[in-house]
């Protein structure tokens, strides 16, 4: 399978999957949008209304964080089970195993794209006008995509060897939600912990989006570079693992 054949297969599978999902559910695409809005409402109610921790910009602040987080979480968790769940197919055809997580990432990225566009429209209508800082958005998204691919490849590659990883990763993501700067800004973290806190790449990613979308400011390039480096490292590790076990996965998952 050459690169063109690989790309065609990925594109077709992602397209077919999105189309079938859109036709299967009555509200289809609407759910992709409703999901982050519902999550935002719940957290807004808890932290903004009941605990009075919000502030005037709390709703857009939350929504931005949740949308960015969901792109990462969905792609990573869907990607994780993708090789593990295709034991049957890979015992019939020699498929490059990286195909499976790549398809999942493409599908979730398209969904994110739609949700993100609607987020922009919502922000504009709330008075957060586009600014020159928007020029940095593609770079920030690319860094996030790197991180997503890294995490998804590594989890996808390891799960057939350690199926328990599923539970570990799910718990990590559930907890990660609360320490990734979705509900509060890094400035709320006590000084002595802040550097440690910002080692979480998601904190910096979400802050980068917020400074562009909500404050019209350029992101912190230094931290973004750190995130990119972490993403590249994970990506290299993930590809290495998948390549190493390319011909072992069909055996591990054959019965």
């Amino acid at each position, binding site marked *: 399978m050459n690169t063109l*054949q690989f790309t*065609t*297969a990925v594109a077709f599978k992602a397209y*077919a999957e999105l189309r*079938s999902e859109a036709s299967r559910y009555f509200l289809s695409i609407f759910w992709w949008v409703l999901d982050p809005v519902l999550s935002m409402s719940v957290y807004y109610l808890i932290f903004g209304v009941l605990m009075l921790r919000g502030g005037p910009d709390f709703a857009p602040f939350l929504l931005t964080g949740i949308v960015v987080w969901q792109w990462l979480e969905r792609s990573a968790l869907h990607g994780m089970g993708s090789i593990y769940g295709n034991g049957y197919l890979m015992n*019939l*055809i020699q*498929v490059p195993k990286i195909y499976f997580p790549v398809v999942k990432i493409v599908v979730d990225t398209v969904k994110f794209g739609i949700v993100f566009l609607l987020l922009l429209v919502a922000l504009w209508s709330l008075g957060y006008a586009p600014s020159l800082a928007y020029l940095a958005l593609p770079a920030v998204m690319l860094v996030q995509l790197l991180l997503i691919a890294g995490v998804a490849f590594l989890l996808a590659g390891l799960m057939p060897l350690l199926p328990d990883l599923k539970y570990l990763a799910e718990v990590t993501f559930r907890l990660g939600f609360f320490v990734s700067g979705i509900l509060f800004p890094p400035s709320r973290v006590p000084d002595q912990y802040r550097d440690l806190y910002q080692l979480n790449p998601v904190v910096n990613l979400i802050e980068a989006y917020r400074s562009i979308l909500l404050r019209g400011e350029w992101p912190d390039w230094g931290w973004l570079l750190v995130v990119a480096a972490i993403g590249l490292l994970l990506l290299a590790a993930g590809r290495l693992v998948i390549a190493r076990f390319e011909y072992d996965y*069909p055996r591990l998952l054959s019965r």
Partner: protein
Amino acid sequence: MQTFDHDREPILSLRNVGVTYRRPSLLGRRSSYTALADVSFDLYHGESLAVIGRNGAGKSTLLKLLAGIIRPDRGALRDRGLKAALLARQVGFDGELTGRDNIVLSALLLGFDRAEIRAQMADIIAFAELGEHIDQPLSTYSAGMRARLGFAVSARLEPDILLIDEALGVGDAGFQAKSTQLIEDRLASDRTVVLVTHSPQVVRRLCNRAVWIDNGMSRMEGEVDAVLNAYSAQYPPAVPRGGPASLAG
């Protein structure tokens, strides 16, 4: 039957190939199972090679090796990067996608390009006798419909090396006759085919050469009659009870 000039380079060759499945366990007990112990043979362009052996001889593992799905643990497998595909009952099927999408996807994964797929699409649908169901999700298909689609995809798209597992009696009597005819056509043509079976009649009728695999070892490779005689001497022909109606017929 054609004769072959074996001075040519084989397109695929196995030398002392072995495959052992190991199941790592956290409790330290590693179970292992040797599917192939020591297998050697060559495959030449244009021949119909029979791999004959009893159940459990390692035939399905051998097919996976030839299809490039797994690699041997011992020995050497040399190929020339040709497209080898399993003629399977189901190929890469995804229940949520329509039959048509599944044809395209399976074919893309098998390495065919869009033009080849477009050219074969109508034939595949007609061969599978699916009619308008082709645009329904696969999850609504009966087992027979899935089987017909799987057969049609892998039979109609022609890989360089076609790998056939004997247990192919799919569908109702009518479709079985049709699929059997198609396999026989492929075997009799000048395409490269590997047929895995335990039925000597089929081999005698349709294959140029044979390899006998026994307990994961290749016991003999050569002319069909010689290999079959040796095989029958070891396992007198009471063996094919309830054998593959599809091919023996």
